[in-house]
């Protein structure tokens, strides 16, 4: 039994680093270089669901599986905004989550980045017209990078997050 399980993980499941996406590179060019240098090649991420359908959460979860293994790049998820360099926010931001998102943002020490995830995080997506929704993440807190998609695949999430690093 144990042998079977060890064998199971010994196979090289982890896939190579995804290639640079010029679209993300262009977005990342606007990042503050001083902040990029200071945060370096290690990022602590606090994920905040500001009202998503949970599709984005499923794919963010997948970043931790053996295929994507996000921690090998120095990116890891933390339990408190006070430990975080990056807020990874899914949306749309609902009225009911607006205050919690603002408070989470204030609790995150500077320098920090906000990455909006998903079509809803970008602009509210299919929920944009609702009176219960404020809008995309940028309607509430300043956003540094948008990773669109419904939901974005783990590869796309990984490509987007890696574009935060300065080579």
């Amino acid at each position, binding site marked *: 039994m144990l042998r079977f399980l060890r064998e199971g993980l010994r196979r090289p499941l982890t896939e190579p680093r995804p290639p640079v996406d010029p679209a993300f590179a262009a977005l990342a060019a606007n990042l503050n270089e001083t902040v990029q240098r200071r945060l370096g090649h290690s990022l602590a991420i606090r994920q905040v669901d500001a009202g998503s359908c949970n599709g984005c959460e499923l794919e963010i979860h997948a970043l931790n599986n053996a295929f994507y293994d996000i921690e090998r790049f120095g990116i890891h998820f933390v339990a408190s905004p006070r430990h975080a360099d990056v807020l990874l926010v899914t949306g749309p931001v609902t009225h*009911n989550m607006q205050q919690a998102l603002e408070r989470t943002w204030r609790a995150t020490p500077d320098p920090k980045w906000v990455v909006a995830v998903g079509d809803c995080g970008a602009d509210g997506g299919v929920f944009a017209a609702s009176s219960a929704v404020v809008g995309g993440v940028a309607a509430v807190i300043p956003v540094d990078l948008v990773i669109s998609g419904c939901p974005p695949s783990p590869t796309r999430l990984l490509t987007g997050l890696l574009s935060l690093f300065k080579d």
Partner: protein
Amino acid sequence: MNYLLGLLDEGWGVQLHRPVRRALVHEGTWMHATALLAAGELTLLSIWGDGSQVHMALLDAEDQHRIGVLTLQCPEGYYPSVGGAHPPAIRLERAIRDLFGFEPIGLQDPRSWLDHREGTDYPFLPVEGEGLHQIPVGPVHAGIIEPGHFRFTCDGETVVRLEQRLGYAHKGVDELFVGASLEQAARLACRVSGDSAVAISLGFARAVEAALDFTPPRRAVRLRALMAELERIANHLGDFGAICNDASFSIIQAHCAVLRERVLRAADGAFGHRLMMDRIVPGGVTVDLDAQNMAAIVGVVAEVRETFAALAKLYDETASLQDRTVATGILKPELARQFGAGGYVGRASGRVFDARKHPGYAPYDSLTFDVPVLTQGDVNARLWIRVAEVKQSLSLIEDILHGMPYGEIMTQVPIRSGEALTLTEAFRGDVLVWLRVNEGFVDRCHVRDASWFQWPLLEAVIEGNIVADFPLCNKSFNCSYSGHDL
């Protein structure tokens, strides 16, 4: 004596409501139904507002194939509360009050539910006693989880009360459905709860088809079931791993995550989307399955069957892990019955109910599978139900592929009007979709996820357990926040 038929016969039958009956009733019949719910003769499927009326969907407790809808006009803005006598209706009625302004007369709880305008002043229930302390958690949680607030009151390590505050993910789904084209509405239904994208879009499509009285092609029906079973397997794998991980047994989690990824990749290859969103639409499915991807799915089925059996065996042989799950978070069968708890939550506590069989829908009426049931009602039982269901779903996929007919995958949606109610089995339980279609547009659509009746039960099962076991209990329920908050 069939109570439900009696209630429906007392009212005026509504035309063009399929496939179950809906009747306009007087207050007396409505209150009689409430009494029958409280007596356990009927099970509440949902209660929702619509213009100047409220509807209540009921399931006969004796004959679980029989469903009916009662409608009460409330032009004055109030109606006799169901929740006052039958607790499963309380949160639904609080939601109706927030969204429609109807006052349920006789409901003791005056607090809002989905409407959070009072902000942090929400009055939690008072708890009195010596040495009690409170632990507030959320809405922003420590993991990659949806938003919600849990207020624990503890005596030392022991939880004496959990009170949930939900609604943070409230996105106004009901209002967005109103006036939406069928195409827009299908996209929206898919995003009510991302983990049940297939099941809810299937429920929506089936409701449109029932309302407009037409059937999708046979091949589409089979492909839909294939997607639904892939979704069920992927979610159960994720849950099984996550529950074990909450007891710090991460090797099972690592393997389950690999298996889940394999299933999602097979889904992506076959249907062009990992979560299979927007693949099921009224009239059929948007993507056909080719021979190569069919073979890939067969391969994944074989791998999951072999590896998952080994993982279940490892769980079964690890006493330290079971020490955390056995006799933890027990849901009593009586509560599961009262709340009509769906999915693994109900089936681990003796409630034999699966929408694929009760009332059942194509193609499951021509497929053979069991509904696994246990009675212990603890975290362990909810795990074993998932294990049994993964096995069933793997066999179902093989049967579905084996009998796959050739032909069209889409039928033109007729421009007509009508109403319908469907029950569809998502991985976490039955999803109810009720809608009224008017010439290609949605007039009103109500989606009730299984979570509505499971969340309150989570409050009940944690009582008397230690705080450290809450993640296990919570994950073993895995209720949807988005699917509940709408």
